[in-house]
């Protein structure tokens, strides 16, 4: 009976392995990022970002190329008004944004679905003074292959300089310091 139970447990683990858990059981530090042609069109680091147009929570239309024309670069933070998002954005507000006044920081709300709901979430979470883009149809979310906490940096020439999780903000700061 004991062995039957043991076999059942091992079988469950084996099945789980089939769903791709082995990446966590044996993590890899190998750099597997695909090679990209510098300056080609796309949203990976080194590529030229597609232009986009999206509403903000004050119902203004924001166009990437316009923002880049009047700043040193644009930062997009994909936000869903959650504890981790709040930890990231609070850190970004207090430790990074003050050092880069010429960079345009946007929170991208990809969950609220409308300007009104997004604005309400923005205010209730204490981000009244932040610039929030309303990604109502998740077009930006899909375009940048984003997830919660993804942070994208686009320099003034339109080149994507960063596209990954915010983590502790160290890499974001390094990237912003290296902007032309």
């Amino acid at each position, binding site marked *: 009976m004991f062995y039957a139970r043991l076999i059942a447990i091992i079988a469950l683990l084996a099945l789980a392995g089939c769903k791709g858990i082995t990446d966590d059981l044996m993590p890899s530090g190998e750099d597997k990022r695909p090679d990209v042609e510098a300056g080609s069109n796309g949203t990976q680091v080194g590529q030229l970002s597609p232009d986009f147009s999206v509403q903000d929570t004050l119902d203004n239309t924001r166009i990437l190329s316009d923002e880049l024309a009047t700043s040193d670069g644009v930062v997009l933070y994909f936000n869903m008004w959650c*504890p981790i998002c709040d930890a990231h954005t*609070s*850190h970004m507000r207090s430790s990074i944004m003050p050092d880069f006044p010429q960079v345009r920081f946007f929170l991208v709300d990809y969950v609220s679905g409308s300007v009104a709901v997004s604005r*309400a979430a923005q205010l209730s979470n204490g981000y009244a003074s932040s610039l929030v883009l309303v990604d109502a149809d998740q077009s930006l979310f899909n375009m940048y292959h984003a*997830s919660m906490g993804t942070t994208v940096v686009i320099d003034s020439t339109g080149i994507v300089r960063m596209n*990954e999780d915010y983590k502790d903000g160290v890499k974001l700061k390094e990237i912003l310091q290296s902007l032309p």
Partner: protein
Amino acid sequence: MLPTRLVVVAGVLCAFSPTAWAASCCGGGSAASLIMPKFAKAMMDVSIDWEHYDGFWDSDGKYHSDPPGSDLNQYRLNLAYGHRLASRWQASVILPYVWNSNQYAGLTSKTDGLGDTTLNLVYEPFDKIKCVWRVRNWEDLKPAVYYGVSLTVPTGISPYDDVTNSFDITGRGFYRLDGSVMLDKTIYPWNVSLLFSYGKYLERDVNREYGKYVEPYKKQLGDRKLGTASVGYTYFLESMDTLTFTLAYSLLQEDAGTINGHPDLTTEMEKKSVSATLAYASMDRNWIFKGTWGHAMPESGQGKNFPVTDVFTIRVSHVLR
């Protein structure tokens, strides 16, 4: 919407909540007990959790409610098996399966998958049952003490697996080693227990986030501390079956983690919670049925950087003698 990442975090916590354990050295179902009764050969345990989310605490401890219309839930089926290795040693394995069901603002998501597995080894430095009916001498006041070591194995689906978005996640992606000590004393009809555990996550390599390969880095979550105190009262039915009612208070904290050796303050968290458990045990204490309600206060100052949840658990344990 949970940030499935958070659902997972909360779900993983349950592996160490008092209600994750099933019996006591005497049997019968104290809520804070950790293991199978003394002299039992083995124990099987099945539980179902329903965790309902109700806003979150930010990193300053301020409470925020979820947007109107949100309905965030996680369901877990936990299969556990404990086996006595020797008179003072026992081991167990807990295998959860997780279902996420979330409606948040404009998004709906339903996903499921295996959660992180927990392996436990417990040492009991005593040979006689410590539950007494009457205190006759100082020896009768000695509690049952349990020393435990647990290994959390990242069998769940984490942000670092080949997943497309955060809703696919059912685990944290890190190995964790916990040491714990529990003191449990029953002087019928009362029971008191204290549980302390300290966990250390192992550092790991990360080269992918949500299916997207990134510049490799090393990540480690912060040390984890859990303290739980509980008080229970047992009522004996005419059949000598028992009903035990237990109240517990828990404080859980995780320190800041590190990324490439640098502190990552965004991963610090804290959660205070209370729980109430009603346990029914058969006269021979071989069958135990439990219902537990775990509650976190949806108000500022009760936690940090963590979702506020209610957890409802139904549990059946069977002890093999």
